[in-house]
Every structure is written in structure tokens, then in C-alpha cells.
């Protein structure tokens, strides 16, 4: 009998070019996404060694991290370094003959949003990008993870990566989500449970009824934040929803090739009884809307909960960690989460910048006004998401409520462009990291779902979306 294999095992086996004596493998890479921040030094390395890009047709370039999100600023990037980095990506695309979406291309957007939109992301493929949120693409049953710039250069030159196989972890989320609780809450609850290093050395497959019930957008949200739980890659087995999402996308196979591909994709699931090194189970029905209180994505609390106190710590190391986070966040410990007031609201990012996220937020705010002391912005994940939202009239709902409606990009998820928090500002953010300084020097980030962020903008503080009317 053939060995029972996990989904990860199957994709891995299909891409092994060579096995080294120590067991590490040279793995073939099917798709390479490239953005302006982590690629200049890689292309420079190729130039210095006189090397070419091995498979230009498997490489797609887009500008996202640096681009300003107002139409005016986009046309005249003032930051000289941002401007140089954007220009360098265009130059590299031209020098090496690579497809490139510039800031004025309708298909431009956050690299992890445009891959699926274009059908560049496909089940069973290996996908890399010099960006840790490459895990997003695992929602399609693709083995996708972030790499450093040296590895970007390695993939450009050889279309392969040297990899040691990770362990298999499965997170099963049983049951149905309560109203108001979303994919974002699922993944934050998982990170809260396993910790930010819980998935280190593993690939996590997400399974169970609550995962199957998620839309592709929701599945991308879950896989996106897998890296915040320490695992470089997340995976969800492809199903009819996956195929329906991909059919007729520009880069997806067509005609007979589509049928052949779907036949193969249907084999991409973990075999019944396949071995997982670690198994975690959650009950969806018991999950609340979640808000992070500290400076690590594992610092999660229920909207009904309180900020932890230093005295809650189990040991000295944890005490120091809580104290540091409380000091940074301007909290004492013991505050009710629902009493925390916000100054800023950010809706967007590769975690929650897709159409479904904007619909969820718009539904919450329709006919209401952003609180007087709050500055709120929506940054669609791509030009196509923006167009779709405008076709549905969502932009009008946001603008009428007092939100700023911006151009697509990474924006205030990491604040490399002009969108950033001022020191001390408290932000309800749909992004993925609440690290110190992430959204601006001394800025304070609370991670939440789009509906929770939208409600916080209106109320001026966190509120339980389950009680929203």
C-alpha cells in the first residue's frame, strides 16, 4: 500500500528536483511574486554575476509596499528613496523581461491579493515571494511561503529553493461560527492558543467544518496570518469553491487544460489517516470577536475580556513581556477591552483588503458617522477590488460615513508609505501585526476583523459587533 500522505507531503513530493545526502531537497518553484522592497538587491546580484532569470513566465512583479494611496501623491512620489525603489523595480522588469504591474495599472495591488485575482495562484503549485505573508496563497492548496532576498535571487536564477521538509500540523476548526465572528477571529484565536512560535518548523493545514464554510476570501485571511503563528506556510485543500473562484481568471488554465487541472486538483487533500506531527482542535461556536491588546499577535483577548495584568504572568520571562507590552500600549492592565478608545481605524492589507472585507465593513457603517475624534481610512487591496467596491457603491457608503477612500497598496499595515500612526495614537486595524512601531513610531495597534474595525470607527471605541445594530 502506498504511504498515506498529507496535502503538504503530496505537493512537496511533486516538486523535488534533487535530494541531498542530509535529506534536504532542491524544490522546484512554480510561481514567483516579486515586489519593490525585497528584490532590488536580488536583481543586483544577478547583474553582478551575469545571470539571467531562468523562467520569466513564472515571475510576476508588482509595486505595493511603497506606493502612496492618494491619487495625487501616487503621481508625484516625494520620498526620494521610495521613488528610487519603485523606479528600480520598473527598471528590473524591463532589463530582465518580466511582467510588471505599475502603480497605475488596474491589476496593481498588494502582491498577495493580485496573485489569486489573476489566477497566477493555483492549487498544487509552489509559490514564493520575498514577503512573509506569502502564506496567504495556501488558501488555494498551493505550498506558498515567504523567503529572504538571497533566496529571491536564488529562485530568479535557478527556479528552485533548497529546503528542509517541515513537520505537518493540522488545525481543525469544528462547528459553525456565530454571527459576527469571522475568519480573522478564527486565525487570531488559533495564534492565541498555539503562540507566535507555535507553528515554527511546521506547515499548518487548516481543516474542519468552519474552514470549509469560509469563502475563498476568508480562507486567505486564515492562511495569511499563519506566519503570525510561526508557520511559514498554511494550507487548505482545494474544493469546488476554489475552482469556482479560479475559473476564467486571466492566468488560470482554459478549456481542456482546465479540465485536466481540476482532475489533478481533486487529488490534493490529505489522505484519510495520514500522519500529522501535531494536531490542534478548536470549536468555532465558542469563538468571540477578538481584539489584540499587546505587541505580539499572540496577545489576544475576547471583546468581552480585559487586558491582562502583570500579576497574571506565570513566570519572570512572561512578566517582563507583559510589562513591556503594557508600557508600549499605554495600558495598566485590567482595563475592559470594550472601554478602549481609538484614534485611528485602518481597513485594508493583504489580511483584510478583499471585496468581502469591504462589504462586511460597509454593512456595519451604512447610514452612520465616524466618531468625531477618529480618523478612519479604507485602502482596497487592489485596483480590481477598488473597482468592484465602487461598482457596488461601497465607496459612497464609506465616504458618507466619513472614511477616507484610498488607492490600493500595503499602506498603513507597515507604514512604509506616507500612511502612518503618530506616536501614542491607538488604532483599530484589520492588518496582521501589532509589533512595536509597526504602523508608525510609538503607534499602538489593535488587530481586529473588518466589521469590528468599522464598528470601532463609528463608536470611537471597541464594541461587540454581535450586539451592533
Amino acid at each position, binding site marked *: 500500500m502506498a504511504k498515506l500522505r498529507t496535502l503538504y507531503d503530496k505537493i512537496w513530493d511533486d516538486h523535488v528536483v534533487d535530494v541531498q545526502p542530509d535529506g534536504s531537497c532542491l524544490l522546484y518553484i512554480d510561481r514567483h511574486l516579486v515586489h519593490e522592497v525585497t528584490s532590488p*538587491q536580488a536583481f543586483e546580484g544577478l547583474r553582478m554575476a551575469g545571470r539571467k532569470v531562468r523562467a520569466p513566465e513564472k515571475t510576476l512583479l508588482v509595486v505595493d509596499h511603497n506606493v502612496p494611496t492618494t491619487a495625487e501623491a501616487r503621481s508625484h512620489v516625494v520620498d526620494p528613496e521610495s521613488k528610487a525603489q519603485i523606479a528600480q523595480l520598473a527598471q528590473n522588469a524591463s532589463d530582465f523581461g518580466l511582467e510588471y504591474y505599475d502603480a497605475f495599472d488596474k491589476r496593481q495591488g498588494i502582491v498577495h491579493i493580485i496573485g489569486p485575482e489573476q489566477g497566477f495562484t493555483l492549487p*498544487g503549485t509552489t509559490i514564493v515571494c520575498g514577503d512573509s505573508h506569502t502564506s496567504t496563497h495556501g488558501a488555494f492548496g498551493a505550498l506558498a511561503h515567504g523567503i529572504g*532576498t538571497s533566496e529571491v535571487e536564488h529562485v530568479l536564477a535557478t527556479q528552485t529553493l533548497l529546503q528542509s521538509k517541515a513537520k505537518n500540523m493540522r488545525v481543525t476548526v469544528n462547528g459553525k461560527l456565530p454571527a459576527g465572528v469571522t475568519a480573522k477571529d478564527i486565525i487570531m484565536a488559533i495564534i492565541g492558543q498555539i503562540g507566535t*512560535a507555535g507553528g515554527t518548523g511546521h506547515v499548518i493545514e487548516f481543516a474542519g467544518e468552519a474552514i470549509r464554510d469560509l469563502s475563498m476570501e476568508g480562507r486567505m485571511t486564515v492562511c495569511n496570518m499563519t506566519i503570525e503563528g510561526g508557520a511559514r506556510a498554511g494550507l487548505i485543500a482545494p474544493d469546488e469553491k476554489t475552482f469556482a473562484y479560479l475559473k476564467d481568471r486571466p492566468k488560470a488554465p482554459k478549456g481542456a487544460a482546465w479540465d485536466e487541472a481540476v482532475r*489533478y486538483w481533486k487529488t490534493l487533500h490529505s489522505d484519510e489517516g495520514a500522519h500529522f506531527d501535531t494536531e490542534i482542535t478548536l470549536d468555532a461556536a465558542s469563538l468571540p470577536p477578538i481584539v489584540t491588546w499587546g505587541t505580539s499577535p499572540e496577545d489576544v483577548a475576547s471583546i468581552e475580556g480585559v487586558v491582562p495584568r502583570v500579576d497574571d504572568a506565570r513566570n519572570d520571562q512572561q512578566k517582563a513581556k507583559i510589562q513591556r507590552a503594557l508600557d508600549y500600549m499605554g495600558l495598566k492592565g485590567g482595563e475592559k477591552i470594550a472601554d478602549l478608545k481609538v484614534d485611528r481605524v485602518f481597513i485594508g492589507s493583504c489580511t483584510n483588503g478583499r471585496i468581502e472585507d469591504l462589504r462586511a465593513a460597509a454593512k456595519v457603517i451604512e447610514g452612520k458617522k465616524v466618531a468625531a475624534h477618529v480618523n478612519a481610512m479604507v485602502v482596497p487591496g487592489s485596483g480590481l477590488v477598488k473597482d468592484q467596491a465602487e461598482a457596488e457603491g461601497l465607496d459612497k457608503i464609506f465616504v458618507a460615513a466619513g472614511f477616507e477612500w484610498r488607492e490600493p497598496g500595503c499602506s498603513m499595515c507597515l507604514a512604509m508609505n506616507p500612511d502612518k500612526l503618530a506616536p501614542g495614537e491607538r488604532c483599530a486595524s484589520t492588518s496582521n501585526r501589532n509589533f512595536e512601531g509597526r504602523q508608525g513610531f510609538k503607534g499602538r495597534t489593535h488587530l481586529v476583523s473588518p466589521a469590528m474595525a468599522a464598528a470601532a470607527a463609528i463608536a470611537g471605541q471597541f464594541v461587540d459587533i454581535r450586539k451592533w445594530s
Partner: protein
Amino acid sequence: MDKFTTLTGVAAPLPITNVDTDMIIPKQYLKTIARTGLGAGLFSEMRFKEDGSENPHFVLNKPAYRKATILVAEDNFGCGSSREHAPWALLDYGIRCVISTSFADIFYNNCFQNGILPAKVSPEDLKKLMDDASRGANATLTVDLERQEIKGPDGGVVKFEIAEFNKHCLLNGLDAIGLTLVKSDKIKSFEDKHNTHAWA
């Protein structure tokens, strides 16, 4: 890439858990198109005050640690983003070895691409090394990659883990792309089969 064989130097204690790559090198330094010069931004939000002057309380600003070549940190060092600017910044500052109980996967890989040794030790040994490091400039550590040992100022020795291939590449300063290109024929024959699939 420079070889890593043995290193004797001052070790700076950084008793923080989950040191993330945003902390190691904040985003404003990611706009460079060069690999060098990032040492100026290493830990900048902790190292400098808002007005740009040095924060005297940060370990690398203390006279004893200004020339540190080793960092000793708590669990899960290097979590967060994939930015290789993090190891570039460490290297540019002069740090060649980071000692912790655990490292985030992407950062860990990135170290080996740059001749930096991420040394994994047990929680008990980390505590010992953190104590050693806290004693300042008179307390240097010696890291011996071949023997996978770290020797403290009192002569105590702790072992660290590293995969054989990673060790080999560090010891010899090997360039990964060069190693892979030797296998070009294997890549070509893989592609000849693989690329016939509709989904490839």
C-alpha cells in the same frame, strides 16, 4: 560570503521574548536598494530617542557593549517579516552570532545566506549565557562552530544545535546559487516533465 569558524567577542544581553524583525530593522530603513549601511538602523527605535540621539539605556549604547559581536536573546528571535534587511543590519553593525532558544524560520534561513550563526541552545544554557553576557566587556564568549560549542568567561561550555548542511556552508562560506547551478541538468530534466502539466 565570509566563512564562520570561531568567534570570540563581547556578547550583548537582550532579554526580550519574540524580538521581531520590525524591531531589528524598522520599515523606514527598507527603502534602500543596497545590502550595506543598514547597521545605522539596527534596533533603531530602541537605540535612539525621538530626537535621534542615543538612548543610553539600550544595551548597545552602553560602553561595555558598543563593540558586541554576539547577541543573546530570549525565545523566538527574528519573528515577523521576511526582510533580509534584519540579518544585513546585524552584520553591518558587526554582530556575527545570535544565541537564543529558538528562531523564526525565515530569519533563521536568512542568517545562513549572510554568514551569521544563529545558535540554538537549551533554556537552561540560555540563562547561563544571559548571565555571562550581563557581566559586560570583561565577559567574552567564544563560539566554535566546528565543535558546536560556546565557551563562557569562566570556562564553562554549552553545546548548540545546527543542521549539518548549514554548518558546512557557514564553515566554508559557500554561495548557495553556485551550489545549485551545478545541478542545472537535474533542474532541466525536472522541468521537461513538470512543465507538461496543465497546472504547472
